[in-house]
């Protein structure tokens, strides 16, 4: 995935854990409880993040929030410009989202194009009452009018830089780093 020389680590395991606890509280506060809330993680790294937020919410409120998995490949706006079709993975949302508050969870918010695709994908699954967006890192450089409701950390970046989010379940280690894209 992201390659290049590591310039700085901006979050370690502890930082990520604290952020996910804080955001769990924010979600509960904003929605006045979680009866109507469902979490949907965007593949791949949004999925473990969503699961952990659900665990935190359960610890605080004693309520299990459903967690779904969204694959947005078929909704990407760059399919015609890629040399090879990206592999499609399965979407798993086995609960009803009609009228629910859907919280989309992703690792990095950058151009906003992934979120645009995710919004279309969610709308094809039903008609949620509201959609909110949670990201671990907001790195700026939006190309679409999209903003996150819950942000772990705002990280100003240059377009040449890459944000690498590493999550235990997928990468075996847990931190967030800034890399320099090789020119």
């Amino acid at each position: 995935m992201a390659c290049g020389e590591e310039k700085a680590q901006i979050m370690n395991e502890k930082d990520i854990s604290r952020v996910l606890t804080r955001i769990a509280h924010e979600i509960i506060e904003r929605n006045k409880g979680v009866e109507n809330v469902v979490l949907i993680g965007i593949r791949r790294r949004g999925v473990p993040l969503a699961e952990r937020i659900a665990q935190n919410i359960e610890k605080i409120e004693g309520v299990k929030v459903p967690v779904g998995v969204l694959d947005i490949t078929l909704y990407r706006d760059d399919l015609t410009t890629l040399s090879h079709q990206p592999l499609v993975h399965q979407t798993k949302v086995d609960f009803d989202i009609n009228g629910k508050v859907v919280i989309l969870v992703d690792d990095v918010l950058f151009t906003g194009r992934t979120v645009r695709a995710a919004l279309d994908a969610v709308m094809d699954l039903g008609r949620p009452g509201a959609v909110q967006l949670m990201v671990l890192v907001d790195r700026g450089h939006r190309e679409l009018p999209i903003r996150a409701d819950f942000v772990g950390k705002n990280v100003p970046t240059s377009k040449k830089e890459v944000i690498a989010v590493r999550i235990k379940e997928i990468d075996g280690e847990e931190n967030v780093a800034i890399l320099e894209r090789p020119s």
Partner: protein
Amino acid sequence: MSGFNCKHILGLRDIAREDICKILKTAKAMKEIISRPIKKVPALRGKTVVTLFYENSTRTKLSFDLAAKYLSADTVSLSVSTSSVKKGESLIDTARTVEAMRTDILVMRHPASGAPATLKNYLNCAIVNAGDGMNEHPTQALLDLFTIQEKKGKIEGLRVAIIGDILHSRVARSNIWGLKKLGAEVAVAAPSTLIPPEIEKLGVEVYTKVEEALKGADVVNVLRLQLERQESSLIPSLREYAMMYCINEKRLNHAKDDVLLMHPGPMNRGVEISDDVADSARSAINEQVTNGVAVRMAVLYLLAGGEKVEKID
């Protein structure tokens, strides 16, 4: 993760094992889509798929059409019987005409073996073989592989018996290529007049007694007796064929208890397969049709790649 390496789908003979696996994996995601209340995704918006069938078809044509529509591609079917083919237009000219209208994917069925492979040299669009003569029917074999994998959890190490008209069957050939590449054991059984010479060179066991091929089978794939291709009296009579080769409850008991029964359709009930077996719980025949749509969605999606190299995320 490397991409998909095929520009066309002409036959499983030419498709590498890893690309077959990619198609099957993609089909799994596609099957989730067609189980939704809103079964449509925008992936192939602006792409055009033309289906050109020189032979009759119900399920293959319908499932290609629907697969393209579920992916938001535009589809047009050209009916050969009412086209300029009747005025003597050649296959190559017809195909070039179709392509000149900015077709991205051409799905074709033709009675001559190798017809789609010939067109590959004249066209730039992607070609999908939907059955060519007695050669291959790759998407049927892919949906059979997908069904086996879904029901049995794997393909490697399974024993698959293919019963019936092997000689005329493009389904059998494609299945043999695919199953061998994915590590299954294959046994075929048919009257000796319906077994093509040197078929054992593909690595299959050949039997003329159906019970022997069925012994220990995890999967039985029953082929349609191609009544339209039997002019030269290869079998004495339909009744005699049914007596010796019809897959019924009694014969199926030679296979494993949890045997999976498949048939590519259309069935000649009472000839190659009995009613009780076709409609039994062990039969995946209807599931195969659903899976056919998912597999064809996967094939169309993977073939519709663009040209520029770029990566987001």
